[in-house]
């Protein structure tokens, strides 16, 4: 036992260890602050928070869990990207390959899908909680606006991903979900006043979304790029603003 303690001491006091981990678990107020401020993952938090803001009864943990679900989809999504080709000839076969032959392929796919659904539910609950505690009131108005944009992006992420399995469920759900774009006033060929703009079936709002008049291979590629690159980038950017604003506009309300 003594040997073990010595070994532990040798490691944690070595130059390499100290170069990586600056602060131990010493339980002093100073160290508690350093644990947060000196850690790249934790420094999003303030060093101290109001007591009521920590309670789950107050926050429901929904904002953080939405972010956790986002991270899960990113990690599992990258894994899936290694085995999936967004080409109409291959996409469905790749899904089968992924489910039956890839190590943990099915598990990764399930986690990706269920966490995406959970993210939608959590982000709605998060909005509901923020509304109930009035946390959008001054000075946090703008962060609520960013949050609404993130809610829309969450739905768009889910929706664009829905097409990628390229099975009956996905193409018809996406067809139905985007048929409405045909009816956009002015910009959709079935919408009011479309003649004024000259919108037609292959040149209107839905064709822009689909990359053509009907859903097809071009749509698959378009949705893939939106799903894997464009929307995640925009979402990450807005997440950064969202988190930054939470800090700037002070955490969890004033105790009135």
């Amino acid at each position, binding site marked *: 036992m003594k040997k073990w303690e010595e070994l532990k001491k040798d490691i944690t006091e070595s130059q390499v260890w100290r170069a990586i981990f600056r602060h131990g678990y010493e339980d002093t107020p100073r160290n508690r602050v350093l644990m947060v401020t000196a850690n790249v993952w934790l420094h999003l938090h303030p060093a101290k928070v109001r007591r009521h803001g920590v309670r789950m009864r107050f926050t429901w943990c929904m904002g953080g869990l939405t972010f956790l679900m986002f991270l899960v989809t990113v990690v599992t999504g990258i894994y899936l990207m290694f085995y999936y080709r967004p080409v109409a000839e291959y996409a469905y076969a790749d899904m089968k390959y992924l489910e039956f032959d890839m190590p943990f392929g099915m598990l990764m796919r399930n986690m990706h899908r269920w966490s995406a659904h959970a993210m939608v539910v959590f982000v709605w609950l998060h909005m509901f909680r923020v509304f109930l505690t009035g946390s959008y009131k001054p000075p946090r108005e703008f962060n609520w606006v960013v949050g609404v944009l993130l809610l829309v992006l969450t*739905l768009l992420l889910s929706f664009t991903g829905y097409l990628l399995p390229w099975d009956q469920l996905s193409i018809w759900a996406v067809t139905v979900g985007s048929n409405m774009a045909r009816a956009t006033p002015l910009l959709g060929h079935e919408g009011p006043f479309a003649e004024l703009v000259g919108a037609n079936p292959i040149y209107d709002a839905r064709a822009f979304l689909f990359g053509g008049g009907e859903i097809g291979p071009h749509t698959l590629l378009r949705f893939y790029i939106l799903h894997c690159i464009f929307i995640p980038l925009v979402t990450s950017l807005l997440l950064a603003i969202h988190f930054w604003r939470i800090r700037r506009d002070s955490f969890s309300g004033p105790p*009135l």
Partner: protein
Amino acid sequence: MAEVAEERQKSPVVDDKIHTWPHLVRVEFLVALFVMIVLTLWSVVVDAPLEEPANPTRTPNPSKAPWYFLGLQEMLVYFDPWLAGVVLPSLIIVGLMMIPFIDINQKGNGYYTFKERKIEILTFFFGFHILWVSMIIIGTFFRGPGWNLFWPWQRWDPHKVVALANVDLPYLLGFRDYFWSSVCGGVLVLGYFVFATLAFYLWILRIKGKEFLERWGMVRFLITALLFVTMLSLPAKMFLRLAFNIKYVWVTPWFNI
């Protein structure tokens, strides 16, 4: 804000802050751990659906949008696509973004309260829980082939006969001429907005008082009224459809409402 500042001066705030490490980090870690365990177990047990390969020539009946959009698809029963699929969703998004700017009630900032902001909470509850969530539930569990209503335990009969006896409201009121039907419909729709905005004004005046309306201002009032009245137009149209088989209220050569 002045009130808040005054209150703070009266009772100096006690420093109720606690260290993020370990108090907050511990909660976050445990909750994340718990959710990850549930998610992993769930993913082990329940497989994500994968149907037969995409076939653009075979339309399934019913074709349903992803569940989180079924509220919008359900609205298509009552309104045309340009309204239910484009204008109303845009208004939902814009309306949500407007909330912090039209809600000038300083109370209830950072704590739970129902008493101090009854109307705000009831409005949100109505829009979110009653309309949005219940429409999703109806679309998910109660709609079958032909987008007809079925109980969840009922067999989906693709040949279910549903009488399509819907008529337009001007027709029901006795208008047979196309032009005058349009005029009547326009008067009805615009009349609804004017009348409902007035009613909204009187309602707010009664429960919040004149002083509040002055503080609120014309612009905030009109934006709120437009959003509120538009939101109520959905249950209004639902009522007209279900009670009187009304298809459209206003028919024009360009659009129908």
